[in-house]
């Protein structure tokens, strides 16, 4: 009746991605991170392994799996590196998923096969320099003129928006005013390279250094009318759905980072000696690692539970928010403790825990801050 075991297929997927992360990501990611380079080769390999197509049907070039399969892959990748994991997460859940969900047949046929193969990336532009949390306050506009959308505005912090394989950004824009005076928000596909659409140089970030993040500006940028994604005026509803799922994915990614901290500490605490004994023989270190394991385990249960509801088609907003909140905080706490266990080496970029430390903070911010998760939970409780 209650069973959290993975079936054979998902267990095999988990193992495959674990091997992939160990053999293809771990050996090269330290250098890429130092040079802040986008991991093109790893992305290509993930593409050939079908990771970008995990939750999509085979007719679109997908693997016929579920969103949970994607979550498992994200967890195993993030156990080794978060930049690679977020590249996959944003590509699938922010890039391809809205297109699959809301796109027309032509839009799906045009883009999905290459997105599923990891040969092309799509991005999702919601946040603006003036604010991300209050998504309804966005200022970017799109007006319909001679069968074309004319877009104007600026987007901030957009993942996967400026790589050489980025093909489009789905831009959330105000397309008019409703009868009740509120903004009408829609989403529009803006292909990379469209005149008037420019990508700023990448940000210098605290973490996720191999992930591609840019500010985007739209200056009388014109795209065909049929680039509207889904129904006009449904933009807000679309990204709320996109973000609910995305939270489960970010939770899985956070659990991966938290687990990576446990993995690294277990090994190091056995090797590193102080006062003539392995540091793992001291209770202060043991308790730290035990607490790290507790956080990881509970966070994993939280995202499994949210995913289970999502797959059953039940409302899962509260569970997604809980999972995202508890796991991003677990990741942050574990990264801090892991760095402590590693002592001075924990502060060095060449050790994975240093990377984990830098990569953890954003998890409490992206795809809804921790405050937002608490707001969502409270609202769902009727407060």
């Amino acid at each position: 009746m209650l069973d959290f075991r993975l079936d054979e297929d998902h267990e095999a997927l988990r193992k495959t991605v674990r091997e992939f992360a160990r053999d293809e990501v771990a050996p090269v990611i330290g250098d890429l991170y130092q040079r802040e380079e986008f991991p093109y080769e790893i992305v290509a390999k993930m593409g050939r392994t079908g990771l970008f197509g995990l939750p999509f049907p085979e007719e679109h070039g997908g693997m016929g799996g579920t969103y949970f399969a994607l979550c498992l892959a994200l967890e195993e990748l993030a156990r080794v590196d978060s930049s690679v994991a977020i590249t996959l997460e944003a590509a699938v859940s922010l890039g391809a998923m809205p297109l699959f969900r809301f796109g027309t047949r032509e839009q799906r046929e045009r883009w999905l096969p290459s997105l599923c193969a990891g040969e092309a990336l799509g991005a999702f532009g919601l946040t603006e320099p003036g604010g991300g949390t209050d998504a309804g306050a966005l200022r970017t506009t799109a007006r319909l003129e001679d069968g074309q959308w004319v877009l104007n505005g600026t987007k901030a912090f957009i993942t996967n928006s400026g790589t050489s394989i980025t093909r489009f950004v789905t831009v959330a824009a105000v397309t008019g005013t409703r009868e009740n005076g509120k903004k009408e928000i829609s989403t529009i596909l803006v292909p990379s390279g469209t005149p008037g659409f420019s990508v700023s140089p990448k940000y210098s970030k605290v973490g996720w250094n191999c992930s591609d993040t840019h500010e985007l500006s739209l200056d009388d940028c014109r795209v065909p009318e049929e680039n509207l994604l889904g129904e006009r005026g449904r933009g807000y509803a679309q990204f709320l759905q996109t973000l609910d799922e995305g939270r489960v994915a970010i939770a899985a990614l956070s659990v991966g980072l938290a687990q990576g901290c446990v993995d690294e500490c277990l090994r190091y605490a056995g090797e590193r000696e102080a006062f003539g004994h392995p540091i793992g023989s001291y209770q202060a270190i043991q308790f730290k690692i035990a607490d790290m394991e507790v956080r990881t385990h509970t966070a994993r249960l939280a995202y499994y539970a949210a995913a289970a509801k999502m797959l059953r088609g039940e409302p899962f907003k509260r569970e997604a928010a809980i999972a995202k909140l508890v796991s991003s905080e677990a990741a942050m706490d574990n990264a801090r403790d892991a760095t402590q266990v590693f002592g001075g080496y924990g502060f060095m970029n060449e050790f994975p825990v240093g990377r984990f430390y830098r990569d953890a903070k954003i998890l409490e911010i992206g795809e809804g801050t921790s405050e937002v998760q608490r707001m969502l939970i409270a609202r769902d409780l009727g407060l």
Partner: protein
Amino acid sequence: MNIVVLVKQVPDTWSERKLTDADHTLDRDSADAVLDEINERAVEEALLIKEAQGGEVTVITMGPDRATDAIRKALSMGADKAVHLSDPALHGSCAVQTAKVLATLVGTVEGAELVIAGNESTDGRAGAVPAMIAEILGWAQLTQVRKLEVDGTTVRAERETDTGIANLEASLPAVVSVNEKINEPRYPSFKGIMAAKKKPVSTLTIADAGIDASEVGLANATTTVLEAAPKPPRTAGQRVEDDGTGGTKVAEFLVGQKLI
């Protein structure tokens, strides 16, 4: 063209591997078992040939029940079917016995014209089984291959050894063993993983395969392991920083060791 790939499940090189104290055979409980990496390459090569020229890929393994995991992996990479010989009587079989058994199994695969194996397993490391199978079947043998081409009934291969590279050509049927340079094996996709469950696996005992118990097993092996000890751990060694005098320091060290 139908291809047989010989795959073996071995202890994961990422975990600690040891022999049992009782009979010096592999302690299968002490380590995770995985499909031997060299066999992943053998499977990959067979799939590349199949994708270009058609045909069917059958994997064969002789190993305990849990070798089904190795089979499953080969099937999820894209092989079509599998034959798994599992029988307690096989425990402790030597390389010669293994080769005889595998040759018998190859004979049961309809239309098989090409056998692809690893050049050397990561656990037994005999590096002899493929050659012995070729002898037993009377097929051409192309071992330690780093590049393979099948053109009609002709097989061309680059054979790489410590002493150099030989270009070989033979007619089918043939047994090929590949080295680690042959290709980069694919990771199974989730679609492949899900499809693998539905692919046919015939699990045989030695009786099913028509093999006599007196021909296999530890008691009848042509050789016996009498004693085994782990390699002594490597010592740290001495590090020379090159501040311009590195060459001299290395030379002094070698003189000190009476090596030069």
